[in-house]
């Protein structure tokens, strides 16, 4: 078994679901005890990928977006965001910072954010059949004893006797 836990979520390509998707992934990775910054990184990357699927994949039209997340040994989180939209003609060009096909209010930073906030990013796409964005991030396990405030066993015994 190469993973400890997994989940799959499918939802309509509506912009109100951007919040839902990042909240769900955030709740899913919570047992790994991520820091606020690690959680913010994951939420931001998921939000970017889902927004891309809505704006570029389905061009604001109807479609289904699927988000899969896996927790693997060693604190590795693997997140896939898939759409069956129009796909990307030139993935290399799409990955360049500030490149955007839609202009207007889009900063062209989506992939740059995913790349810098996650430990790895892979984009697989075929024009006409859709896009799969795979991102990985390691949640660094912090020493539990540092933050643990529970009393030691030998501290508890005298209290019980008292």
């Amino acid at each position, binding site marked *: 078994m190469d993973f400890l836990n997994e989940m799959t979520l499918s939802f309509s390509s509506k912009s109100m679901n951007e919040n839902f998707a990042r909240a769900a992934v955030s709740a899913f990775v919570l047992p790994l005890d991520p820091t606020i910054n690690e959680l913010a990184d994951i939420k*931001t990357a998921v939000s970017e990928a889902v*927004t891309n699927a809505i704006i570029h994949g389905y061009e604001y039209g109807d479609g289904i977006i699927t988000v899969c997340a896996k927790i693997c040994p060693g604190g590795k989180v693997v997140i896939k965001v898939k759409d069956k939209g129009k796909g990307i003609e030139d993935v290399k060009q799409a990955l360049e910072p500030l490149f955007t096909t839609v202009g207007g209010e889009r900063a062209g930073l989506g992939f740059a954010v995913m790349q810098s906030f996650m430990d790895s990013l892979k984009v697989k796409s075929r024009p006409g059949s859709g896009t799969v964005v795979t991102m990985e991030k390691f949640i660094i396990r912090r020493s539990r004893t540092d933050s643990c405030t529970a009393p030691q066993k030998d501290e508890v015994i005298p209290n019980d006797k008292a």
Partner: protein
Amino acid sequence: MNVKTVYDSGTLTALLSGDIDHHSARKMRRIIDGDIEICRPEKLILDFRRVQFMDSSGIGLIMGRYRLMSLCGGSVDIVNIPQPLERIVKLSGITTLMKV
């Protein structure tokens, strides 16, 4: 509402709150631009103190307002960026365009 605006002697301050993503940024943009049109401020202050989350749509929101304000010779200040949002702000390079 997730934007509260106050106008005072040439300065329009927009207090943003909640999450800024592609969904919410559209509504925020409409409110801020509507008020810019009415008040014609010399300076726009975007206050992020109550923003809990922001993706690159927030950068788009800032850049768009910067462009709009520049058109009429105005300026934009970004204030009170919470610590978790600092990374995306730095990554975007907007700090070279306006006061943050």
